[in-house]
């Protein structure tokens, strides 16, 4: 029961990168590391322009003959009945809410996992409590039928 005693747990030391310093980026070490995100931006621009260009080229090449039947929504050959945007099952909302809870939990787990080697036994116990409380909520949702689909 060491955790109920009045104890002083030292803060973890600033993380020391176990990797040897990368000599490759000698050019980049003296500048802001945010610059490394620049290629992602470049690629993003290319990735956006690729479909845009492809769609535009295609629009010049293709021929288009429209008629009413062709433009109606596909419903196995019948005329479409009503609007498609109707009410749908509430279960999708429940899934979305459960997702939010667990996703936020995962977000908390990532930083914990990174400094886990410094937290050691304290980190393990804390995560047992954290996940334990989550499991209770999860179990309760299960028990109340939030995870059922039929």
């Amino acid at each position, binding site marked *: 029961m060491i955790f109920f005693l009045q104890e002083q747990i030292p803060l973890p030391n600033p993380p020391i990168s176990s990797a040897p310093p990368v000599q490759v980026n000698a050019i980049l070490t003296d500048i802001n590391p945010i610059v490394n995100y620049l290629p992602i931006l470049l690629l993003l621009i290319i990735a956006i322009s690729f479909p845009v260009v*492809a769609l535009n080229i295609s629009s010049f090449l293709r021929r288009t003959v429209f008629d009413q039947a062709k433009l109606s929504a596909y419903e196995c050959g019948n005329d479409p009945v009503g609007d498609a945007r109707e009410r749908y099952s509430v279960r999708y909302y429940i899934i979305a809410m459960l997702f939010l809870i667990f*996703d936020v939990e995962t977000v908390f787990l*990532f930083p914990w996992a990174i400094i886990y080697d410094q937290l050691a036994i304290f980190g393990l116990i804390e995560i*047992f409590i954290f996940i334990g409380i989550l499991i209770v909520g999860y179990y309760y949702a299960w028990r109340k039928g939030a*995870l059922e689909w039929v």
Partner: protein
Amino acid sequence: MDIYKLIEWVVKIGIVFLIFMHALAYIVLLERRLLGFIQMRLGPNRVGPFGLLQPLADGIKFFFKEEIIPRDADRTLYIIAPVVALVPALTTIAVIPFGDTVNLFGRQIELSITRVDISMLVILALTSMGVYGIVLAGWSSNNKYSLMGGLRSSAQMISYELSLSLAIVGVVIFSGSLDLVQIAKEQMGTWGGIIPKWNIFTQPIGFTLFLISVIAETNRVPFDLPEAETELVAGFHTEYSSMKFAIFFIAEYANMVTASAMATLLFLGGWHGPYVEKFPLLGPVYFTMKILFFLVLYIWLRGTLPRFRYDQLMKFGWKFMIPVALANVVLVAALALFLY
């Protein structure tokens, strides 16, 4: 800023992007040929030797096909949707390392487009954006099948994203970093000269979880519910034709490649293999081979397995994957404590 660095980036982006796009085209061919063999037929073999020009023919066909936008569709969203689906799938390759640093043209060049210290998070963030394209496509088509497909797909993707990230947490505990290069480097070397120090051997549960979730994330068989041909008539892209359909198609395969690359980097040691320390250029070769292994696995699964029913899929995701993934995190944490 160093101008050479900029040039290096531009060149790397150009090369990787071109190779990636061609690879996507030929993965489609590979899939069709392999499926043909699995089903005791030949597959496309007419266009060029062994059908090697088939992707080109397909591409040209897509460009010339007539395009239909349904009358009641939300035009803007309908056009944006395929772009939204494709862009994150293509952008992820920016942070995927495919080899160690090599010495080329008198420069030390990293074999990845860029290296950021949270590349794992970048990939997770980008891949989870993909669901928007599918939801938008399903909603904007104003088709009942599409709406069903889009809803199912989003529910499925967010459900399996949880076990996916939880499986990754296990790896992060071992490597103590979110940098994919660092994660791959931690798996360097062997135990006793025989067994490589890959995470798959230390975390088999995590690997299985990751593989299953990633297949579900990419909407592939046996989790291809969103586009179940027989019940939903291709789901969210029922109404899509021509180039827009092709873009969804490319996005799906790009996601497959990204997923395979992630599996390789996290669990199969990335570019590591025999003699890679001496000849760093072997790295990309090993990396490609490992990715191919996963791609063939995808295709094999498609040729072999039937499809889940939707309630089975959700039940499996929520009632099996998540508890096991949570248990895996705790287990790995405990293991890491005793091992290190």
